[in-house]
């Protein structure tokens, strides 16, 4: 068996006897009803999972996902078919399902000859690939996280530790002659702690990984650190009081609070919402929407990050994309369909969950760039407020109203972090919040490599980041 990472283009030919010539034939069938553009997306993904709970390695799992998605574009319309049976008649059927979006009797275009395209430098950082590492080695990492968490304090009552890894081989061929392949590794080690004291019960979560090999867990972030961090959060929450309710100054912790940028800004700069003019940003391209301290990028090329990729799911080379420059919207996250219709350049943000999904514009690694303030000085500037420390995720709607959920935080009193507080959802309107950012710290940090973003039912791995940020006023939804 050839090493798929060493020579990805050969992968589907070796494993499924689908040659470049076959792919060209599929594209021809897909264009048979007059579509302008056709694309095939071949995917073979293996996934493994190890779970430790109740002091035992409770289970291991292995998954194989195989399939082919075929897309045809005709004007603004997309036809799509997929199959996980790669026999010629099933593939042909999927191609005809996709072709049906165009309703002419004969082809309007013919696919160009496929020219294999190599990739630039890889953004994956793998020495010891997790998907091919011995299971007992992976089990020892899970055990190390579990035991460190359990041993972190007497209040830790239950622990769950898990390791997930996958390798996703993909080949994309389209009617413009593109033929490109990639093999994307992804690994995540995570730990959940449940703490109990005096009838109270709380939980803590920590994890890490990315497009890395197992050496990450000795060089960058150890299983013990993950286990202890989950225990720390679970323990501190036992001492926490209910979060306050109402409007107040909010300081966002560096790294973890990147979820705010993801929700408040990132989603509404995805091109599809702007092309359809449902995004509140749709009429504001080139206009100022926030204070000059705010500069936001999405960069799918940051080495080793979860959200990174060597090629997007439409075969476009990804680019670091400036979205907001000193408060002014200057860029959108594009896929082929929107970029074509909007006559804007591709940015390499067309992503899909798997072969059975149509690609749409998505974030990769989104962050707010560093500012000039010192973190301590930012906290000192708040007389009475809320420090949002750890997060569970958020949501946004096209009007710009967004929420994000804080799992733990602190009260700020007279410029100092004081009482720990628990769960609260913060709500705001993005145009309002972008103008209420008062100070941006110099300490740009990225959040943990555990994030997943959902849109239209499709989940993709992402990362986000930010420095310490002060928002002059925001609504905190605690129990008061």
């Amino acid at each position, binding site marked *: 068996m050839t090493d798929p990472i060493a020579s990805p283009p050969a992968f589907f030919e070796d494993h499924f006897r689908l040659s470049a010539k076959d792919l060209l034939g599929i594209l021809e069938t897909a264009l048979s009803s007059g579509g302008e553009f056709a694309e095939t997306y071949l995917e073979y993904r293996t996934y493994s*999972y190890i779970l430790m709970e109740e002091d*035992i*390695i*409770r*289970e*291991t*799992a*292995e*998954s*194989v*996902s195989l*399939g082919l998605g075929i897309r045809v574009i005709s004007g*603004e*319309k*997309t*036809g*799509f*078919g997929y199959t*996980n*049976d790669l026999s010629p008649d099933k593939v042909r059927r999927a191609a005809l399902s996709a072709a*049906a*979006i165009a309703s002419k009797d004969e082809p309007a275009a013919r696919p160009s000859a496929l020219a294999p395209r190599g990739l630039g430098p890889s953004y994956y950082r793998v020495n010891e690939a997790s998907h091919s590492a011995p*299971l*007992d080695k992976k089990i020892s990492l899970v055990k190390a996280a579990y035991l460190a968490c359990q041993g972190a304090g007497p209040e830790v*009552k239950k622990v769950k530790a898990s390791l997930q890894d996958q390798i996703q081989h993909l080949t994309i061929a389209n009617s413009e002659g593109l033929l490109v392949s990639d093999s994307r590794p992804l690994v995540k080690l995570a730990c959940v702690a449940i703490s*109990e004291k005096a009838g109270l*019960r*709380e939980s803590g979560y920590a994890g890490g990984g990315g497009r890395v090999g197992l050496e990450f867990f000795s060089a960058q972030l150890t299983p013990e650190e993950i286990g202890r961090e989950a225990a720390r959060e679970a323990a501190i929450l036992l001492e926490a009081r209910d*979060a*306050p*309710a*109402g409007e107040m100054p909010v300081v966002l912790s560096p790294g973890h609070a990147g979820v705010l940028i993801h929700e408040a800004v990132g989603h509404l700069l995805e091109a599809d919402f702007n092309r*359809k003019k449902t995004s*509140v940003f749709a009429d504001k391209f080139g206009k100022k929407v926030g204070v000059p301290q705010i500069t936001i990028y999405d960069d799918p090329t940051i080495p080793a990050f979860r959200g990174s990729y060597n090629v997007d799911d439409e075969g476009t080379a990804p680019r670091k994309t400036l979205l907001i420059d000193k408060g002014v919207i200057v860029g959108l996250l594009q896929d082929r369909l929107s970029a074509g219709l909007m006559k804007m350049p591709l940015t390499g943000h067309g992503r899909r969950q798997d072969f*059975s999904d*149509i690609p749409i514009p998505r974030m990769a690694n989104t962050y707010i760039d560093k500012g000039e303030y010192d973190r301590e000085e930012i906290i000192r500037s708040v007389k009475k407020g809320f420090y949002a420390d750890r997060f*569970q*995720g958020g*949501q946004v*709607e*096209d*009007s*710009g*109203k*967004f*929420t*994000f*959920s804080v799992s733990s935080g602190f009260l700020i009193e007279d410029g100092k972090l004081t009482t720990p507080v*628990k*769960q*609260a*959802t913060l*709500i705001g*309107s993005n145009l309002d919040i972008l103008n209420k950012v008062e100070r941006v710290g110099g300490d740009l940090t990225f959040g943990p490599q555990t994030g997943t973003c959902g849109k239209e039912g499709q989940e993709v791995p992402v990362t986000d980041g930010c420095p310490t940020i002060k928002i002059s006023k925001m*609504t*905190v*939804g*605690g*129990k*008061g």
Partner: protein
Amino acid sequence: MRPGGPEDDLVWLAERLVKFGKSCGADEIEVGIGDGYEFSVNVRLGEIEDLVEAGSRAMGVRVIKDKKTAFATSSDLAQETLERLIRNAVRRSELASRDEFAGLPSLSPVRVDPEGLRLFDPEIPELDSKTNIGLALETERIALADKRITNSFGASFLAHDGTSVLASSNGFVGRYRKTQCSLSVGLQAGDGDDLVEDFWFSTETHFKDLEPPEAVARKAVARTVRQLRPRKIKTQRVPVIFEPLMTSGLVGFLFACVSGVAVYQKSSFLAGRLGDKIAGENITVIDDGLMPEKLGTSPFDSEGVPSQRTTVIEKGILKKYLCNTYAARKLNLSTTGNADGNAVSPNNFYLARGADSPSEIIRSCEKGLLLIRTLGHGLNPVTGDISRGAFGLWIEKGEIVYPVSEITVSGNLGEILGNIEMVGSDLEFRGSICGPTIKVREMMIAGEGST
């Protein structure tokens, strides 16, 4: 739509894989195979946006050897791949720990006849694309005819036809075919930067029961425009009335807290509370997998345990946790037919209806919030804490007076269950988790100013 369902082949394949697993040394093995066909169309502003038509299969297997468990799944159904995965799983099980609670359920003498549940509508596979596309186009057209609607997120029609097969070394072999279709539309209204949005949908196992385009469109329009020109309100504690979809969200959170898996993992605030009074007398919650034609119905769960009707909360008393075989053994309880692989999932899980009409409930409220939408997550089963972004209609003297937005509602499920003053009569099975309108005595609303 489907080119003839070779269900017998799937049963044969599942049984053969069970035998293969035994021959590889598995003490127990369970093989599930799903075969699905999907059609979906999204239309927007009168044109098709995308059209998907596809069939796919997947296999899942659990093997147990020496009380050690391993799982595998595959969407590649090539014999060579499936046999390799099963051999690997048997080998891999040795690296797991011995677990006295591991194992398949024993074969139940009860069999539920899939025919009697009427889950398969023969009309759905026969629907042609033109009809389906027409329904979506018509729904959006009616909605956009209302001048207050300024943009559309699109309308969709989806149809699904799936066969589930399960074979197990305990002797169980079962299969059923289930259809589902849905029609939905999402709308935007407002001007400048003051935009509001909402949607409506109908989803059924039988095509004849689907709400017509007119009904879906009108409801989506009404739900969207009622939010126009929202006001902000002060931070305060007030009664909160949940519309049925909002109650469903709350009931879904309750499900996460009565899951036997969450209970043995102590990740539920309801762990250790069996037999306690956890809610008012007016609260009865049921999980019922046997209701004919309903979305959450099936003859058996992922372990082949027959579906049943389980009273989870009876007049405020916590009676049962919903368990798969593993959770049941850990907790020394019985399985309730809710297994979904390693997890548990609801069948038809609902808050039983009360006596009050929704309009009576609103009239009973001197000052409060009618909760119509939430945004974000903010649910913690470990503590029962809830904190979510919210949109609502403000109520004064029993009348809806204006919409409100950019607020949060917070509370704790444990406290809310004891504080539900009224339960509506308007229970509808619009999904597998549902509930009627309810009125909660008091919750914290965060808005302008602070407490």
